[in-house]
């Protein structure tokens, strides 16, 4: 036997790692990371006059200090928070409720309900925008007649057109469309809770509400947290619905302006307004930072406290 040699049979280079990772990285970096960085990079330049000059953080300073920009920026940000708040208060609780109901034991037709309720999530925003405007339009009277028929007619208003209600109404529509996602995710987690644990609480004397509140809810908190993050990210990137229904000027009086529409207007321009790649990039960078900070804060303050449970 030879002298033990600790470096014998050195591990071969992990070619498989390269093979597994490269295709995804290649496509992703080339067609997403690089273009995005390339664009975000523009935020440090001024491209207003055709050629670009390096201006450092000037664009950002303009964005938050110059009234012309900052008013729109803060307005969009505030609206975005409202938009997000409504989703958190409505979309996720409704999704939760539906998921809980869907997961009730021995429920017939649950697959059918699930598919049907998920349908709006699959539709293109063109349909969503059109049909809700039709439904809510005071001119065609669908909602109005419906409300009158249940005695609430005088509450009806041109919700989509009023400054006070347009954003809320659009949020509701968005909630309607996307409620399927939290529903599906939470439903799946609920299915994962072992029956035993629920049985145990029943034997312990808890009624269904108590079982939900004390047992199921804490166990699906991690999923709810994940759903919240996804909602946050999606809401702060939201754009299409507003754009389809209200256009890039997000009327009335910018009351439905979100970061997404603000970015679009800035970057691509609108009507007679010329797009500015550099200011647009600055808005986009800020959006990204806000989302990043939000996600970080969330991970730091909330996620850390939420425990995942193995069953």
């Amino acid at each position, binding site marked *: 036997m030879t002298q033990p040699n600790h470096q014998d049979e050195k591990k071969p280079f992990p070619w498989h790692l390269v093979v597994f990772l490269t295709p995804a990285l290649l496509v992703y970096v080339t067609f997403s990371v690089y273009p995005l960085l390339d664009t975000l990079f523009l935020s440090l330049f001024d491209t207003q006059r055709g050629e670009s000059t390096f201006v450092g953080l000037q664009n950002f300073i303009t964005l938050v200090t110059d009234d012309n920009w900052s008013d729109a920026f803060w307005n969009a940000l505030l609206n975005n928070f409202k938009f997000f708040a409504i989703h958190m208060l409505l979309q996720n609780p409704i999704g939760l409720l539906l998921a809980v109901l869907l997961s009730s034991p021995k429920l017939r037709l649950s697959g059918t309900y699930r598919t049907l309720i998920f349908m709006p999530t699959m539709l293109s925003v063109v349909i969503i925008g059109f049909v809700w*405007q039709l439904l809510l339009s*005071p*001119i065609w009277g669908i909602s109005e007649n419906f409300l009158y028929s249940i005695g609430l007619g005088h509450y009806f208003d041109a919700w989509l*057109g009023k400054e006070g209600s347009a954003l809320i109404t659009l949020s509701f529509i968005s909630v309607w469309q996307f409620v399927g996602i939290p529903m599906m995710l939470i439903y799946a987690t609920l299915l994962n809770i072992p029956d035993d644990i629920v049985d145990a609480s029943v034997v312990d004397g808890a009624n269904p509400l108590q079982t939900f509140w004390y047992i199921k809810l804490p166990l699906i908190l991690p999923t709810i947290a994940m759903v919240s993050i996804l909602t946050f990210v999606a809401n702060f990137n939201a754009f299409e619905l507003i754009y389809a229904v209200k256009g890039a000027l997000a*009327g009335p*009086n910018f009351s439905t302006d979100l970061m997404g529409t603000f970015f679009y207007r800035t970057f*691509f*321009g609108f*009507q*007679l307004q010329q797009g500015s790649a550099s200011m647009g990039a600055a808005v986009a960078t800020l959006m990204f930072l806000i989302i990043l900070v939000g996600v970080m804060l969330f991970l730091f303050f909330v996620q850390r406290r939420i425990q995942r449970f193995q069953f």
Partner: protein
Amino acid sequence: AGTLNIESWRSDDANIWSDVIIPAFNKSHPGTKVYFSPTPPTQYNSALQAKLQAGTAGDLITCRPFDTSLTLYKEGYLDKLNDLKGLGEFSDVAKSAWVTDDGQDQFCLPMASVIHGFIYNKEIFKELSLSEPKTRDEFFKVLDTIKSESRYTPLAMGTADQWETATMGFQNIGPNYWKGEAGRKALLDGKAKLTDKPYVDTWKELAKWKPYLGNGFEAQKYSDSQNLFTLSRSAIYPAGSWDIQTFNNQADFEFGAFPPPVAKAGDTCYISDHTDIGIGINANSKNKAAARELLNWMTSQEFAELFANAVPGFFPLSNHKIAIKDPVAQEFISWRDDCESTIRNSYQILSRGTPNLENQLWNVSAQVINGTMTPEAAAQETQEGLEQWYAPQQ
């Protein structure tokens, strides 16, 4: 010879191009294949910009008037057209929307203009024994009559899309207040302010429209307005001439048109005859020769007539005398003879800075009609916006 792609936001015209215009062109220029590839209008500017930057845009670019195209030209995406033969067929006013500020370079060929006015339902007018109003008083009297004596909505307009309020409201009736080109130039020179009486009065009149609009007009979209009118639920429609084509297809009643009413009978009337569509050549086109040929053909009488009759409501800007068959379109174009023409006052130069005047006009006009802003405040806000960056106004 070769292939030409036309970038356009006019998806409405796709059939007309493929069925009428391109075949006609091919009769005299058989070798050239022309494709009209429209982009949805809301995405046109941004999509075009991206495509130009990447070099994938079509050979011919349909031009929005003034700065949008001017910027493209300055960035080198559009060819200079100064030496295009047919350019002589156009008046300076017609060309003004697509020349550099110093008037030196022409970068798009004027194609069509649109005229504002009011379209009305003749049957309803007959039913209520109304006649076309000539003055503002008459106009409001007509509105009052419709409102009080019938179930029709007097005015078919909504504020949901905002642009109608600025375009078919403010720019429609405004020229009568600010005396057309004179007022527009004064604004450009800094001799007039938006807080001056003519402008405030324009908004004041707009504010007076509110009671005559339909229920829930705040959420009424442009297409809703069209539908209200074509379904005979509304009597008068503040219009752009392009609507003629739509209504021809959709309305099964007779409709007519009248120009924006003047203050008192006999006053000079002013109309907005806005240079709206031009067409230019992509500087990076591989087929410029053919593109030029097409443009040249587009300066011809043949094209003007084809286009004007295929798309009633879009009026050729060339000096050719052409026969327009559509009666309502004829009515519109006849105003050119009776009234002074002008273009929308926010389009030239004034929407160049931040804040953007055109965007502001949309916003404040909608608010004025909604009743959430006074005419004075609207004037104040737009004027302040202008003063921020436009030297002559400072």
